[in-house]
């Protein structure tokens, strides 16, 4: 019973906040939006609209947050992201205006504003009223009725009870009790109705699916970009490196052929040079292979590959590697996990100034989980263009996620999870 009273009281309070703030906010934003969009034809609107619509999005996002927190109603946000190369200044702002107006989510938001200030207001106010209004009934019974009447006429209506004296005031208290009892049972549900109403207007019918498609499109684009860049790098490295050295070697051998009888000393010198070129070509090919698919990874799998990587770190940092894998993930997942772990290790060595690093690799509940912890100075963050953002993109291709905990002063813990099966 105690929890029921509490949750009903909380629902009433929240309903009140939603009703008051919602009414004011939605009316203000609706008026602003309509004016701003109307002024787009005059030009000025193109500059103000993105700003106003940005406010509308914040407003809607606040509702999404409280819907999830207060009633567990998930309302997906499906705004289209802006392209990365959006220009600044007036041109960029106009472009942003065009993109926002072309986004169906914007129009759903705008449609939602009038709904929120009417039906939304009522559904938010109801739970509040059911909790607050009975208090007035008790106040009337307790003597407030005297303010309205001297007992000879109906001075005040409480609900459908005409209050004209102490007797009817007691009836008002009785009605209040009935309302309160109802409120105790239905207030939380009513608040939920408010959020369901919100969801039905601002979430697209296929919201989660659309969101999923958007994420997949994005990660696929990242994957395609990354592999194209990788191919270009390999081609360039081969072309400028090993290939060029082999050509030079062939030329040297040709020269040697001509010199071998005329000038044996010089020919011998060139043989040594050709041998050096072949050794260098091999070194370059080896480095290239390591960058594409590290040999230890191919031979032994993730655990030993990370161990070998830890041994190759250029500084005397102690690295402990613990591995709990019953099999091997698919090759692309394995490679992504390896390079991500490598990047995290390199970060710990380069930026954290750590003395010790712990790497844990395990497969739990269908997730390959790798955590890299160091005792360095912390302060690591996922910044655009940074190494951690690179890991995030790489993992994103496989629906993997990255979590970084790195308070200033350390320690830093980077956790990566990729859903996969072992074989």
């Amino acid at each position, binding site marked *: 019973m105690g929890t029921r009273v509490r949750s009903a009281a909380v629902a009433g309070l929240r309903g009140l906040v939603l009703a008051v703030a919602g009414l004011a906010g939605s009316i203000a934003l609706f008026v602003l939006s309509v004016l701003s969009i109307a002024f787009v034809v005059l030009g000025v609107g193109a500059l103000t609209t993105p700003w106003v619509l940005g406010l509308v999005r914040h407003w809607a996002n606040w509702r999404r947050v409280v819907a999830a927190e207060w009633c567990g109603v998930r309302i997906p946000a499906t705004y289209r992201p802006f392209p990365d190369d959006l220009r600044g200044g007036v041109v960029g702002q106009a472009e942003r205006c065009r993109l926002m107006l072309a986004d169906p989510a914007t129009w759903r938001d705008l449609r939602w504003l009038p709904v929120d200030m009417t039906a939304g207001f009522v559904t938010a106010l109801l739970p509040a009223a059911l909790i607050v209004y009975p208090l007035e009934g008790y106040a009337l019974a307790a003597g407030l009725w005297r303010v309205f009447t001297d007992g000879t006429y109906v001075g005040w209506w409480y609900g459908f009870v005409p209050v004209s004296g102490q007797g009817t005031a007691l009836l008002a208290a009785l009605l209040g009790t009935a309302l309160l009892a109802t409120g105790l049972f239905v207030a939380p549900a009513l608040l939920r109705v408010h959020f369901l109403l919100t969801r039905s207007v601002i979430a697209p019918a296929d919201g989660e699916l659309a969101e999923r498609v958007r994420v997949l499109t994005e990660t696929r684009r990242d994957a395609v970009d990354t592999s194209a860049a990788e191919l270009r790098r390999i081609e360039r490295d081969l072309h400028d490196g090993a290939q060029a050295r082999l050509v030079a070697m062939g030329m040297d051998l040709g020269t040697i052929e001509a010199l071998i009888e005329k000038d044996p000393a010089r020919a011998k010198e060139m043989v040594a040079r050709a041998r050096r070129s072949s050794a260098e070509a091999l070194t370059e090919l080896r480095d290239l*292979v390591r960058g594409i698919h590290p040999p230890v990874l191919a031979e032994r799998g993730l655990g030993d590959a990370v*161990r070998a990587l830890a*041994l*190759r770190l250029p500084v*005397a940092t102690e690295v402990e590697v613990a591995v709990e894998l019953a099999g091997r993930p698919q090759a692309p997942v394995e490679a992504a996990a390896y390079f991500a772990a490598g990047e995290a290790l390199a970060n710990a060595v380069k930026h954290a100034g750590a003395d010790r690093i712990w790497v844990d690799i395990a497969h739990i509940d269908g997730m390959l989980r790798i955590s890299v912890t160091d005792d360095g100075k912390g302060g690591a963050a996922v910044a655009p263009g940074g190494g951690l953002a690179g890991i995030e993109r790489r993992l994103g291709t496989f629906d993997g996620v990255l979590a970084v905990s790195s308070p200033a002063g350390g320690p830093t813990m980077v956790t990566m999870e990729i859903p996969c099966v072992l074989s």
Partner: protein
Amino acid sequence: MRVVLAEDLFLLRDGLVRMLQAYDFEIAAAVESGPELTKALAELNPDVAVVDVRLPPSHTDEGLQCALAARRERPGLPVLVLSQHVEQLYARELLADGTGGVGYLLKDRVFDADQFIDAVRRVAAGGTAMDPTVIKELLSRRAADPPLGGLTPRELEVLGLMAQGRSNAAIAAELVVTERAIAKHTSNIFAKLGLPVSDDDNRRVLAVLAYLDRGAA
């Protein structure tokens, strides 16, 4: 001296056979897969085995695994492992049993036939032959640590060559100094590292590697 050779690429196997024969080795068997290697090592009892890390049928580290298994059967069986790349992880596994008679070299080392043959002979005699790249990584990693930090650059250089498995005479030749000077350097190194002096080449390499290994994961 009888050699068992395992290498899956025909060109390389053929080249190695020719080279070893040119230096008066007897090729007991030249095989191309892991199971064949295991069989040859068990039946032919060679003086030394030269083994490629990656062998069929698995095309992973089958050669290394066969060599390690054969050495468990017959401790001290001399094995020289060749690889397209060298990893400290594998070097440690080879050295782990501490019985000597192991080598781990990049395939490129066959370019210098004299040095390569020297390495094969050293391994066959129970010594070690570690690739300079492995040793270089080890030394650069540990150089920041206090006890190694106490070594002079020259002493570090000598330690590096010593860790590869070279004798004092070979180190002296490489650095163009007298053998006496090297002997002095090595005793200084042992003193600074707190290692008991020993004139067994193999033991001193193992001692150095064990020292370098200390504290690493």
